[in-house]
């Protein structure tokens, strides 16, 4: 008797496994974000900074275009490369441009790279609860003319280091850079010089090699790489073709 009553109770309280819930959870619902793929890399030297990004823009398993620039010149001495959701990236770039213009009007000078680094961090954190889906690398020359590279996460945590990579090929490229640029690694404690001992042409060659390697294995990286070099003479741009498969 008792066991029959228990069985009846358990039937009432047990979850109804056979029926499905009124709303079906099959398939992805709408997401405000998309990932357009791509990889960005930057290396800082004693008096130069090299920033590079591939030129492929994708969505899902398709390519949208083979010739899209992920690099944005914010000031004369400061360049932003961002991978992730390019609509958010574009919006972020416009936001920073506007803030830079206001700064120039108020303070009669261009923003320095460290100042822009802080501004970018604050701008990203401002949208802490609906972030910019943007993985940024900021590169340029600091107030003394030394190369500087700042890496960010999507909500604004940042660090100055000698080199950095972000995006879909990050995990392929970062270990190679760690190996080649040991002294400037952000992993070394106590933190040492935040610029590499390489010459400018050595750094550019290293970047070309790393992108070629990343393009082999990462499906979202390829088509071409755009390389921007900042030194005291100004800003220079190079391109190199990558595998289109």
């Amino acid at each position, binding site marked *: 008797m008792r066991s029959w009553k228990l069985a009846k109770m358990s039937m009432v309280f047990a979850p109804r496994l056979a029926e499905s819930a009124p709303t079906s959870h099959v398939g992805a619902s709408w997401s405000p974000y998309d990932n357009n793929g791509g990889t960005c890399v930057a290396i800082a030297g004693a008096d130069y900074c090299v920033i590079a990004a591939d030129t492929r823009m994708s969505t899902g398993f398709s390519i949208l275009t083979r010739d899209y620039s992920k690099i944005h010149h914010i000031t004369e001495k400061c360049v932003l490369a961002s991978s992730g959701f390019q609509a958010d990236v574009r919006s972020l770039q416009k936001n920073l441009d506007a803030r830079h213009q206001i*700064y120039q009007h*108020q*303070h*009669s000078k261009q923003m*320095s790279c460290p*100042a822009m680094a*802080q*501004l970018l961090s604050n701008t990203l954190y401002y949208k802490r609860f609906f972030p910019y889906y943007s993985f940024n690398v900021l590169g340029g020359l600091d107030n003394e003319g030394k190369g500087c590279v700042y890496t960010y996460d999507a909500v604004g945590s940042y660090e100055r280091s000698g080199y950095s990579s972000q995006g879909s090929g990050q995990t392929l490229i970062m270990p190679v850079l760690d190996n080649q640029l040991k002294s400037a690694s952000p992993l070394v404690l106590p933190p040492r010089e935040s610029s590499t001992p390489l010459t400018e042409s050595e750094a550019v060659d290293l970047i070309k090699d790393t992108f070629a390697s990343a393009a082999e294995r990462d499906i979202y990286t390829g088509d071409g790489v755009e390389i921007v070099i900042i030194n005291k003479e100004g800003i220079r741009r190079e391109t190199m073709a990558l595998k289109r498969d």
Partner: protein
Amino acid sequence: MEIDEHIGCAMSGLTADARTLVEHGRVETQNHRFSYNEPMSVESTTQALCDLALRFGEGDEESMSRPFGVSLLIAGHDESGPCLYHTDPSGTFWQCDAKAIGSGSEGADTSLQEHFNKNMTLEEAETLALSTLKQVMEEKVTSSNVDIAKVAPKYHLYSPEEVEAVIQRL
């Protein structure tokens, strides 16, 4: 009073009003450091204070119905070197090499014009400032009725002993 570690100011007039301006200056300079990780330039700080003076205050509730009745001397050190600005209640500011404000300012200004030169050392400047003050003050200059501060390159308010040391050199 100190506005930031690289900017200080002296006031003349309704000193109660000055405190509102200095407080605003402190907030603006710290906001700048937060946003841009760098010290705010002295001219921009002066401009921020003058903007407040022009509006008679900020916001709907806190704004006053009269101008701030105070002149300020803003002294600071930024990437363009040491500099001095003079503001008045209209919200105008001027850059100066040497300036005096207050009741004895006319005589003091003339005296400064005669004795100032751009290559003065800090000690000579201390002596000149204090001797000019002595001329226009009715009471005798002592370490308890005179304040000295310098921005070289950080703000520092002199202790009574340091003031006494300068008085001895007069």
